[in-house]
């Protein structure tokens, strides 16, 4: 699953290059969004979905820091 998520993240970057709609206005989605705009709005939504999967299946093992692992407050001088 981790590999699939990684592939999907790479796919987001590939889809972002959408050279296939560079010179097109049609179809105009919902009657007001040219395809070059509608596709990228959809890509924003897709990005959120892919990253939700990444968080689930690609969560790094070393970022959960418990309070007891935290650094002690730094030493400062005595209060004056």
């Amino acid at each position, binding site marked *: 699953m981790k590999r699939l998520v990684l592939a999907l993240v790479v796919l987001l970057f590939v889809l*972002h290059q959408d050279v296939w709609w560079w010179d097109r206005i049609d179809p105009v989605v919902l009657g*007001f969004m040219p395809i070059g705009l509608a596709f990228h709005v959809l890509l924003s939504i897709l990005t*959120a979905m892919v990253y939700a999967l990444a*968080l689930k299946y690609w969560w*790094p093992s070393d*970022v959960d*820091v418990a309070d007891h692992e935290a650094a002690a407050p730094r030493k400062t*001088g005595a209060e004056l």
Partner: protein
Amino acid sequence: MIPLWIILGYLVVLLLLGFASNRVSTGTQVDYFLASRGVGPVMLLMSLFGTTMTAFAVVGSSGEASQTGIGVYGLMASASGIVHALCFFLVGMKLWAFGKRHGYLTQIEFFRDRFESDAIGLLLFPLLVLMLFPYLLTGVLGLGGCITGVTTGAFPDVFKSTNGAIPPWLGEGIIVSVVLVYIFVGGVRSTLWVNAFQNVLFMGVGIVAMFVIAEKMGGFENATRLAREKNPSLLKRTMDEADKPRYEAAMVGYETKLSVWKETKVGPAPRKPHKPGIDPLDWLSYMLIPLSVAVFPHLFQYYLTAKSAKAFKLSVVGHPIFVMITWLPCVLLGVWFVTGEVNGKSILPPDADPNRVLAMGIKGITGPVLSGLMAAGILATNSLDAQFLVLGNMFTNDIVAHYAGRERFSEKQLLRMGRAFVVGVVVLTYIVSLTEPRSVFKLGTWCFSGFAGLFPLTIAAIYWRRATKWGAIASILAGGVAWLWMFHDSGYGSQEDYHFMGWMPVAPIVAVATMALIGVSMMSRPPTNRTLEKFFALGVK
């Protein structure tokens, strides 16, 4: 006067939020600069999103869309959604974990420790400050200009030289004073609360403005139909055949005006007509610009405020959606305004200043309430507070406490010092802004490329065990030299469409910095086991 009252109300709310946030302060440095590392998912999303969405997102996107068209959304918004959120995931969470585990307060403390080098701090400190300062100045100047624009005619007897508008020096003074008061009393917590309020404001106003204006223009479909009839290039990313004669005629007019201007040098130089369309190589290299969010010192500071790594989850998923909610109305309005008509009359004059497209459009076809709310929304899109605060933090911890010895100062003294530095940075910024350094706008855009040039260093510090001190220093120097050389080659930013071998400057800067980092790291002694254990031991379990 209604817009003025709305702006005043907005500024009062910021002050109230600042004082309210002070009531939960614990009076320590960690609380003042990092909100005691206790920020939850919602506030973290609000702060990260609010800080990455500068005034450019609202004002600049509409102006750019009025010239370049709908492609601006893909060029900047969907790209930012992909790259920013990935940076939060790959960089932000890791830096937060290092910060919590080893007690870092600043970015430079992390780099010093990771690369076992005090010198890297001395190299990075002036670089970060010098790149952040123009960014800060553009914010102050832009917001001062916004107040001047909105208040035109409000005080005809008081400010005669500015057509009754609050002059920039006063507008800038009001803005920095309000920001100074709330960050002085509330620290980073006040900026979190203010960011949350600002995000709701500018997203809400953008959506409402889009619906109101579409309705005035005869509906969404009609607004886009007018754009298609009058300027079809705005609805795609190449120049439409129908627009070629207009562009060619505009270029002829420009050449004529330019030759006259070169002889007389009277007034400002004529503006070159914008060539419709987006170059695919620009599109590709622009994707590197948002990498700067992994490096901005003020974002680093926000990363450290998180309560846990899990607090980042909402930011990673929500950020692309928030970017969409903010940018879609701005891009559509930019396109609609430039081609739109209301009652048979064009909304904008033919040569409207792109930076004023949004304000002029809204003022032209809606009432003073929406106009005032939009002005407040524009004022809300700034990250001055976080930038002022992080500079104060860096001066206190990276310079004074680091070199004079933290033990020499009590917690209260460090906090007082931090506040004093914040005041100093604010006052200095204001004084410099009074000199009206307009060229700073050109420098500001170059600073983003400079920050992106430090991305290879950041990502290697986190993920590449073999990255060494000398590799890091070489990367900073190589990226810096490449930046300086191209900045000089572009006439210090005056050549706005400057490219190096067809690429935007950010691409060669990142490439050179990466090559230097890898090459020199491989040739130098690896980091010590102590450092590897400190930063990588858990990751390889």
